[in-house]
């Protein structure tokens, strides 16, 4: 009975906690940079404010522009249904695996890029072009990192990967594991538009990528897209932490186990977020044409991870 509540609980947690996580990273970065920073609850306030405003929409925009916020948030929520945040395996385990998660996120990116082109603004087109460039180059890395994890577990099924790490930690946690997660972390930075690939805090015309596509959005539409962005960030961190270090995930969901799982997830994600805040204060944004080099490094890491898993075999 409890097991059927796990997935609604995951979705609710993602919806509620994601803006707070972003607020935390922003606050940490501000403090590290010697600023005072806005409180953690600031992203919630922004969302509430945006939901109360009117939509200012370009005359040139078509239905794609209006549908995109719902598609992007919808795909992110379905990812929240599939990813083992609190328990593994989930009731909807057979609906989709890790590959499905990757391609669902690509579906969101695809529509976001179309929405960037839709109003005919120069910035939106530029952002769409850059976003698709990075998404295309991140795709092989992501697939190889998935491959490295799957070779160990013998499956791309999320529940099985988690179960395998839990049951056989000594064998799994080798150098291949570490490299696969380093590769996944670089993919996360690229996909979520964090430094050094994209600067989430900038509206500087020539460097923005993600923001450029959202430039024409306002009001509730913008709120949905911002929220989806926060959630994508949260889900990526949660996915990485639960695949790399699944302890705490409920194997037999009960009230106590789930409470522990929520707590463990919070600790892991906050730790990763602190690490990211440190990284982002240390590095500067890369030129767009240096980003492929970063992704090539990540690709090599993933390739080495796969090769290592063969050597260990």
């Amino acid at each position, binding site marked *: 009975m409890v097991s059927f509540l796990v997935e609604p609980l995951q979705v609710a947690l993602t919806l509620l906690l994601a803006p707070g996580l972003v607020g935390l990273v922003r606050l940490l970065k501000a403090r590290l940079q010697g600023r005072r920073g806005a409180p953690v609850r600031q992203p919630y306030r922004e969302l509430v404010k945006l939901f109360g405003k009117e939509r200012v*929409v*370009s005359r040139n925009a078509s239905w794609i522009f209006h549908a995109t916020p719902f598609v992007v948030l919808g795909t992110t929520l379905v990812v929240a249904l599939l990813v083992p945040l609190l328990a593994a395996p989930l009731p909807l385990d057979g609906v989709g695996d890790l*590959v499905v998660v990757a*391609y669902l996120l690509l579906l969101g990116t695809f529509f976001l890029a179309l929405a960037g082109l839709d109003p005919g603004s*120069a910035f939106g087109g530029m952002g769409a072009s850059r976003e698709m460039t990075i998404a295309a180059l991140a795709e092989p890395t992501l697939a190889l990192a998935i*491959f490295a994890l799957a070779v160990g577990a013998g499956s791309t099924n999320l529940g099985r990967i988690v179960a395998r790490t839990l049951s056989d930690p000594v064998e799994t946690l080798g150098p291949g594991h570490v490299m696969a997660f380093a590769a996944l972390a670089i993919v996360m930075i690229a996909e979520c538009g964090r430094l050094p690939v994209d600067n989430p805090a900038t509206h500087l015309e020539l460097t923005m990528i993600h923001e450029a596509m959202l430039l024409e959005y306002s009001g509730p539409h913008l709120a949905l897209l911002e929220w989806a962005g926060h959630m994508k960030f949260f889900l990526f961190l949660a996915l990485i932490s639960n695949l790399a270090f699944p302890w705490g995930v409920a194997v037999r969901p009960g009230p106590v186990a789930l409470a522990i799982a929520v707590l463990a997830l919070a600790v892991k994600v906050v730790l990763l977020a602190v690490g990211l805040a440190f990284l982002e204060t240390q590095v500067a944004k890369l030129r767009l044409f240096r980003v492929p080099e970063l992704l090539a490094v990540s690709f090599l890491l993933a390739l080495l991870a*796969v090769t290592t898993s063969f050597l260990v075999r």
Partner: protein
Amino acid sequence: MIGLLPMITTYLAGSAAAIALPGDRGRRVAQALAGAGALLGLATALSVIGSGKAAVFDLPSSVPALGLAFRLDALGAFFLALIGLVAVPAAIYADAYTKEEAPPSGTPGKAAPRSGRLAGATLNLFLLAMSLVVSAANVLAFLFAWEAMSLASYLLVVGDGEKAESVSAGRWYAGMAHAGFGLIAAAFFLLAARAGGDGFETIRSLSSSPGPALRNVVFLLALLGFGSKAGIVPLHVWLPRAHPAAPSHVSALMSGAMLPIGVYGLLRVGLDLLGGGPPWWGGVVLALGAVSALKGVLYALTEQDLKRLLAYSSIENLGIVFMGIGIGFVFHGHGRADLAAVALAAGLYHALNHAAFKGLLFLGSGAVLKATGTRNLEEMGGLIKRMPQTAACFLVGAAAIAALPPLNGFASEWLLLQVFMAGASLPEGLTAALMALAVGTLALAGGLAAACFVKAFGIPFLALPRSRAAEEAREVAGSMRFAMIALAAACALLGLAPSVVMSFLARVLGGMPGVDAGGALFRPGSVLEAPQGSSRIAPPLLALCLIVVIAALVVGLRLLGVRGRTRLVETWGCGRTVQTSRMEITSMAFAEPLRRVFAGLYRPTKDLTIGFHPESKYFVRSITYRSRIRSWFEEDLYRSFYDLLRPLAASGRLIQSGSVHLYLAYIVAALLIFLLLGRWL
């Protein structure tokens, strides 16, 4: 059981009607009969696959070696079904599409209906020839149908021969098709000579007897010959020329149905007649497929001509099909019958999906061409408002080809990724490690395809029109929209019902030697399962989740009272008050970042001319920027071939006098020489 005869007679009647009936009626009746013939073919194919009994049709001859035998088995029926899937909508579409297509510069009036009637007749012959290729049961019938298929499609590409582009494309196509034909004929003759008969049955029963050297030669000849038809790099050069030159419904047929016939040939010869071979056969196919997939999508990305973009994308998709077939051959060579079945199924599944979405996209590009009169992406824009239904169908096709869930492209690419992951469990370390590269290649091709089709949909359909023609575009005729909607529905259904497709494929592959299709493929329920059950997805449930979640979002926002008035304004222009289409990103600019990343491959040329004011160079009058990329690899390869062949061809001119009598003498002499050779050898 319908048999092959009704289909054949319908096509022949269509051809005859086009020539016999006067005026525009001939064209319309021919196209209607082409559709009917394709429908009959589809029904035959489905009944053959369903019943497992082959449809037979023989044309005996008084000379025993000259009989034509046709026997449609399950493998051939799969490809006949694929032809039907594209040909039925294409024939419906053709009626309105080919109407009054009098070229504005050419002679108006009588010329158009006549060429329309000829095209109708050729269309029927083309469909008939394709259907006969996949049902041929002896070497002579196969080669005869194959040549007829090449010639008919050549005529369709060249059209009335008034456009220089079509003529040049036709020349490339004819050259490559005939070189391929020569290789295929050589492969078949080697086999038939060794087997002592030209029936496929005879060859099959003796397939193990030829030595490994001969088998390797036959396989490589067949791979090159069929690869040139499938558009595999580096034999693809005809494809980006021929597809754009042909009328759009023919492009859809050539890309969706004719290219996979190359795959059919490879499976028929490599797996059925030769009974499979060593794993390196598959390795070669896999490598060629991987190169084609990457090369195809990279060139599609930088293309500004919508139909040529789709043609390059066909190279990519056939490359993906070849990757599946190749890994299937590898598993087959290692004696893994269960894995081989899933790998081959993944390849064929992708071929089926490609037929649906590429047929749809070519029909969509034809609708755009009909409405705007241009194939140049830089002159389109804003068509989603003027052609909403075409735009929606094109979007479905673009999302399907970009492998986005829950559409069909995702299902086959997911299965192929799973096959590669299963390949990593092979005991052979090298093969297993190469699987990682195959996964990387497939994922990169998928990512680049997503970027490419954001451009292919976004630039023509979104934002402001970039030309007068795009501004005045109108939605196309209802029958054309119907054809596109049917194919869009096929894209969705093929993705949502993978278990139906897989049970279908289990029957198709069931008869292949060394392929265990029964247990490995079919799963009840709407589930697609990875080899050995290591992972599974349920696309219908996934689609349901997406729909429910999005509906919940919409309703939830309503209930929470988030209404938000909508105010329509100009796009923000940094203070400029009027937005024009010149401020939009262009098709070329969209691909610019990836063009720079892969500059080593594209080797772009730049040509910048600045016209200064005569008084002062601080005033610029005009700037011309020209940049093009060239496929240097093929150009260099074919150039060296050409340089080699040209002196030979020139010396061959010595015997060409133009006298018919002399040519007759040559024929007699050649016949005598071959008879004598046959006696002695």
